[in-house]
């Protein structure tokens, strides 16, 4: 498999002098094309900071991030927007849909921004909506549909222009269990059908169980890594829970 994302000794510090906070101490890993990678960890472990660095919303203090062989830490600030627009797709916990546009227009916006010819926009939107089973709500406004539908719309918007990497930050965080399950099935579907590469940050074991591989972070470092392999999702879920128990601290940490 081809390597699509590579992180080399990433460090991220906030503050200065005596008041230095190390959000990421030293993280290195790679993601292969078509892989579904989960990142887990307790609050403050550096998950979101890591995602922000990969998505170029934030800059690293040290280290390099390569996407498709291109060092994103070296990209000039003015070219970053173009890089994000063409290579990345985002799904956020709070959907980030525009309330002034319909669901269909929200999805089309990503294509319009990428200068897709006007006559190809609507067929693409319809096809993507079909894949995510939201074809019936394309003319509705975000406030008129459920949370799960909104997140699937956000998903469609993130994927419609064929990004190299889909970044998801707690995508099920604001959903009820039923909607979360539907969304994750959709994620699994697009991963399987479209071969999308997904990097998903979550602290929920059930959500993480849909990934192929999980990196566990603690205090800004990789604590351990778990691969699903040929195990069933149920078994993988159990393994995740075990790691989470270890991650939360053993008896030796209790004084």
């Amino acid at each position: 498999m081809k390597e699509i994302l590579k992180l080399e000794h990433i460090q991220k510090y906030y503050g200065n002098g005596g008041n230095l906070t190390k959000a990421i101490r030293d993280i290195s890993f790679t993601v292969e094309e078509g892989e579904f990678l989960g990142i887990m960890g307790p609050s403050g472990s550096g998950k979101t900071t890591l995602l922000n660095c990969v998505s170029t919303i934030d800059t690293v203090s040290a280290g390099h991030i390569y996407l498709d062989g291109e060092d994103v830490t070296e990209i000039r600030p003015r070219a970053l927007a173009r890089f994000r627009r063409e290579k990345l797709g985002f799904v956020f916990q709070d959907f980030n849909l525009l309330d002034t546009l319909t669901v269909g227009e929200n999805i089309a916006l990503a294509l319009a921004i990428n200068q897709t010819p006007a006559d190809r926009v609507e067929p693409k939107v319809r096809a993507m909506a079909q894949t995510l089973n939201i074809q019936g709500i394309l003319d509705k406004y975000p406030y008129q549909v459920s949370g799960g539908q909104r997140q699937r719309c956000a998903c469609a918007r993130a994927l419609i222009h064929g990004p190299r990497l889909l970044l998801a930050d707690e995508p099920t965080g604001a959903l009820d269990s039923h909607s979360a399950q539907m969304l994750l099935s959709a994620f699994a579907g697009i991963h399987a059908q479209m071969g999308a590469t997904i990097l998903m940050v979550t602290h929920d074991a059930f959500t993480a169980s849909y990934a192929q591989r999980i990196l566990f972070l603690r205090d800004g470092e990789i604590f351990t890594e778990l691969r699903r392999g040929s195990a069933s999702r149920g078994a993988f879920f159990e393994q995740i829970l075990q790691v989470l128990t270890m991650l939360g601290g053993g008896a030796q940490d209790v004084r």
Partner: protein
Amino acid sequence: MYAKLILRSARRSVRDYLVYIVTLTLCVTLFYAFLSVSSRYYQPDIGVEYDFTLLSDGMKLAICGVTLILLFLIQFVNRYMLRSRQKEFALEAVLGMEQRTIAWLFFAETLLMGGVAVLLGIGLGAVCSQFITALLLTNYGQSYHPVWTLFPDTMLWTVGFFFLSFLAVGIFNTRTIRRTKILSMLTASRENEAPFQTSRWMQAGAALYLLLALVRVVQGTRMLYFYGDIRLALPVQLMFWANILAPAGLLAWAAAWAMHRRKWGFPVLVLGLMVGAVLCGLSSVSVPVMQRKYLLVFGAGGTNQALGFLLVDLIFLLCGGIWLSSTLLVWKKDHSPACRYRGTNLFFFGQMISKLRTTSKTMALVSVTLVLAIFLFGAAPVLVGWAEGYLEARSMYDIQIFSRYNDVYDEADLPRGGYDQVTQFLAEEKIGIQADCAFSLYLPRREEFRSRGKYDFPVAAIALSDYNAIRAMLGLEPVALAEGEFTTQWRTIASAADRAAFLAQHPAVSTDAGELTLAQRAYYTDPMGESFYNSYTDVLYVFPDEVCRQLLPVMECRYLMTAQPLPYETARALEHLFEEYYPEQTPGGVNYSIRLRTLQVNSARASNFVLQTTLLYGAVVLMVICLTVLSLQQLLDAGQYRARFQVLRRLGVEETEIHHLVVRQLGVWFGLPVGAAVLVGTIVTGCFVGALEAEINAYVGFGALAVQLGVMAAILAVLLGCYFVSTWALFRRAIEE
């Protein structure tokens, strides 16, 4: 603790509501500066011939009246603050604070912000009042020296007026907070359906407009019934019928729409009514045009009514245009995929449509108010120039005495004598006389004494020697007439066309002393005052002295120039004395009048100053209120916008494109109401100038007016530019935070 809370909240609010506070400060500055003129302690050196108290009371009333409009802005901002702070209030309530306390804390916070604006405004007002004093002294023809004083009574007025305004709005808000349930305050921010609820104001507006169309049909029919005549020219016939058929067309369109309303939708009705409004407006405009051209007899009432209808048409067009703009944008978006899917256009359409749908009422109101402001800006130089010019034309002599014979029916009752009491009074007061001319005005033919109809009042005549004496008083060259000749003297306001027509009709005049022919130099237009023309006439015959000796003298006049200006009190005393001897209405019917330059100038200057300052103050206040509302509507929603622009950034839109979008958004936001208002305001001001064409020509001059209007337009443009740039800068900062 509460004080700390208030201070902290106010400090945060100052940042969010900067534009509002600046506008408020500006309004207080203008309020204080203009009102300082009416202070008891204000004693500018304007000379003994002027009395200042005339001005004070008028100013106070006018300024306070105009400033009441500011209440609207205060209420608008408070309502917005209230809405955006609901969640915070709910949290305070959950923590156990009484809702009454929360309400009073909010009131104290707004009062504190207002207080800061009032204090700043008074400070700036003290500086600004120097400009007003300079303006006033220039108006009275005196030189200006700065005097720095604070006027305690004006300060009290300013503080009191604004405190009462804040209190009125504050009490209303306090009630709202106390009555709102905690739960609904907590969930207020989640009610995202609200933005798409459309108000029904346009439906109400259309209904009212149709009702007015009905009234117009009735009025149009009445006009045709009373004034229509088959012998009138075709354009006049068309004018009569257009004023019935155009409004009838509106009603017919509404009836047709009512039958297909499900299929056509309300926007189609509005569009049709707007087309009809253009036709109705044109038919209304034709009324004064035809009246002037064909001298129709329905007079000022009919013309004013037509102009009133025109104003309603324009306002409807303005409101309809703004209301339809969101529909048009939706139509454009739906029918042009190429435009819709080009770059960030989709985002731009979304922003504009959602905002226009929910705020079209405010936008229309802002636009109509801007039209009023533009009109006031345009009307100020016209009216003030007119009053100034007319003052010059009518106060050419220090003392003018004249009589009228309109109510005299017996020749024996006609006045005789030279007003000797005036000479005596001036001698007693030790006022020297530089020039004095007592003269009679005659009727060419004795039988004309009986002609008293408004349109057949005879033109009076003056003897050549008297005419030359008056000309000498004014420093004009004397006039000579050959035997058997006459010439004419014309009022300033008479148009060249009227004069030419009159002279063509009167190449000769038959008098009781024989017929006179028009001299080669047929007319004189030098301004020589307004009082020696007969009622309802703009012309005076100048006859040879020997002819006049055989005519019937009907009016007795006397013009005097004093060696020094009459002091105000002396002028008043002379006026009283004159009225004692020569009452306005004598038993015989003679009507005597005295005009003293001191008093004329005094009252005209005072009322002119009040007029000028009120118009300009009103225009500036209205303008800044409108621009503030437009600016705040964008800035107060910055939180919402920040989130939306953040989404764009995450989708990979460059900063330059985002800045371009902000300029586009604010450009449409300011451009739509301001552009519509400028268009309609120009039409309204144009109609106004057109209606006063003769007066402007006589007393102001179109060149001078164009310069003044140009200066006004530049001030408006600068004001608009300032608000636009500051809104743009604050908006950019808000979405980047």
